């Protein structure tokens, strides 16, 4: 099983160091990475940092801060794709890029500093993206003499934050990434803690049961092959079988699936995540979504979404491009209902005129017809990106479809 794990938290709380330590202690690093770091230390007269295993840009190494997200693969009981993200506020867009495919999050909180601005913002954004499973690593325990009382205080503070943001599952581990306590090896300096190490906690993650959802097939393109229309796309949820009667929205076309083509041989059935081609009688359009007659997808032209804006401003009356599945279309900001503090999740004002960079809000959008689902029901079609001048500037989830 592969699990995507994102490491988040405030700047300098030790995210890259924690991953570097994990890789180092598990001996997952190739020899020439160590040699490269040795060369760096000598050439730039630096002392060794575990973060050097992750940070690769010259600017990152010289300024000792992570600028963009990176991924490393790591094997424990499971396979892990560990996603490191930057902790600075100016790099939230890079953080979200890294976090968008994560299933599990590790929130790093520095024991001497406690909850800080990006601790809250990262936790808020992850929860908005649908991550509910969070492991809190209370780091730099070496700087507070490994005192259980400090751990308890920071744990209480973090727990209060996470609970208010809506998290239900959380675990707390006292660690020192620099010294290696409770990351890969159990600590001998914190007798008062009897819980699992970080790696034991990761290895204990159970695969999530996938509940069967209604079929949603996203149309990417139509190829004309051997005098057949092959509609290519991806099954985003549910199961598709040969012989199914499908309805496509927003085009409204209804057709029977004659063949399911996967090169070089046809298949009888396709499941969630499969990229396939289906042969049907008539042409549908890129961006259409197919489903069965019962539980069919429907196109809507108005919905309530929760959005985080990463660049520029968003005003009432502004037009954006909305992208969901393979569909791109116009959308209009009809009303900004609530402005939300992305550090705490608190509502900061209602029915306001505009929001700025790194701010979040609930918004009523009007759009040209497209298929969207409630994020809580079919997440794959309940999340969207907004773009301006071809540039992705924000991301959101669908709260209400008004159906």
């Amino acid at each position, binding site marked *: 099983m*592969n699990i995507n794990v994102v490491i988040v938290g405030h700047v300098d709380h030790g995210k890259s160091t924690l991953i570097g330590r994990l890789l180092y202690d598990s*001996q997952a*690093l*190739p*020899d*020439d*990475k160590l040699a*490269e770091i040795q*060369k*760096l230390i000598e*050439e730039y007269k630096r002392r060794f940092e575990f973060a050097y295993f*992750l940070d*690769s*840009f*010259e*600017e990152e190494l010289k300024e000792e801060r992570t*600028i*963009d*997200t*990176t*991924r*490393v*693969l790591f094997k424990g009981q499971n*396979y892990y*794709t560990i996603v490191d993200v930057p902790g600075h506020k100016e790099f939230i*867009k*890079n953080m*979200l*890029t890294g976090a*968008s*495919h994560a299933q599990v999050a590790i929130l790093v909180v520095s024991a001497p500093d406690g909850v800080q601005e990006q601790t809250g913002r990262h936790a808020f954004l992850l929860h908005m993206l649908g991550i509910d499973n969070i492991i809190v690593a209370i780091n730099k325990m070496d700087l507070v003499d490994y005192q259980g009382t400090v751990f308890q205080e920071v744990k209480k503070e973090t727990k209060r934050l996470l609970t208010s943001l809506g998290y239900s599952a959380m675990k707390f581990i006292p660690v020192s990434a620099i010294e290696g306590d409770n990351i890969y090896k159990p600590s001998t300096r914190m007798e008062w803690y009897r819980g699992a190490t970080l790696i034991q906690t990761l290895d204990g993650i159970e695969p999530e049961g996938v509940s069967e959802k209604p079929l949603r097939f996203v149309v*990417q*393109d139509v*190829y004309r*092959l051997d005098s057949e229309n*092959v509609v*290519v*796309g*991806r099954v985003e949820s549910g199961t598709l079988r040969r012989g199914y009667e499908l309805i496509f929205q927003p085009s409204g076309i209804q057709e029977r699936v004659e063949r399911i*083509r*996967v*090169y*070089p041989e046809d298949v009888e059935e396709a499941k969630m*995540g*499969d*990229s396939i*081609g289906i042969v049907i009688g008539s042409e549908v359009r*890129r961006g259409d979504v197919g489903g069965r007659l019962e539980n069919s997808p429907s196109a809507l032209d108005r919905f309530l979404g929760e959005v985080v804006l*990463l660049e520029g401003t968003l005003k009432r009356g502004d037009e954006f491009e909305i*992208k*969901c599945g*393979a569909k791109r279309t116009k959308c209009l900001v009809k009303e900004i209902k609530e402005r939300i503090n992305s550090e705490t999740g608190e509502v900061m004002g209602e029915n306001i005129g505009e929001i700025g960079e790194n701010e979040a809000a609930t918004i009523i959008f009007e759009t040209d017809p497209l298929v969207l689902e409630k994020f809580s029901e079919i997440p794959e079609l309940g999340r969207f*990106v907004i*773009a301006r*001048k*071809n*540039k*992705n*500037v924000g*991301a959101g989830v669908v709260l209400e479809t008004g159906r």
Partner: protein
Amino acid sequence: MLDLNDLENRTIYIVREVYAEFKSPAVLWSTGKDSTTMLWLCRKAFFGRIPFPVIHIDTGYKFKQMYKFRDDIAKAWRLDLVIAKNEEALKEGVSPKNGKFECCTRLKTEALKKCLDEYGFDALILAIRRDEHGIRAKERYFSPRDENFRWDYKDQPLEMWDQFQRLAGTGTHMRVHPILHWRELDVWEYVRREGMPINPMYFAKNEKRYRSLGCEPCTLPIESNAVNIHEIVEELKTTKIAERSGRAQDKERIFTMQKLRALGYM
């Protein structure tokens, strides 16, 4: 092992996005294992025949076996092969002796630039992977380049849930990396599962094999007894040697790879 079906499905999705969203895409092929896998996946995405050109950047310094493999496969898969060669630089006598940075830039990056000018491609599919190099681990699936080929790595696009960046303005092209999330081991497991043809230089002869293929003067074999794909898979499960350890251009100076890539190197 990552699930090969998941890897394949996501890659095919990305390739089809490129074909739907760009006017004139092309795929780069070095004849090595990764880009040959990339071609294989493109063939799957389009049910047997790749509907856009395949570019081979010919530095003139490739191994003889690479040229043979290229010509055999191009014929068997009916590829629309475009060969990009910087004849001018070769006439000037550019070679690794001028320094690897200069040689890679002139014979690869510049050759590609000329090819783009000539054909007007707006998207290039490349088979780089995150686990090859720390700098490649920083890449996006869709990575815009300006008219000078520059990679603005300090301001990369927001890329969530397979909603990729589009091109803004003219004179630019998009680099697309559909196997970014694959690991070296996954590529070999996939080659084995699919029974794909592969350049025999990857298999050990006299206790040495090539783990990564490049230009003859700058590519060294590693010590290995792996004479077939099964043995390569087993070797990779335990090795501590980095995949590109035999590739000289990465090692010349500490940030060479970043500097090469910022200028448009693959």
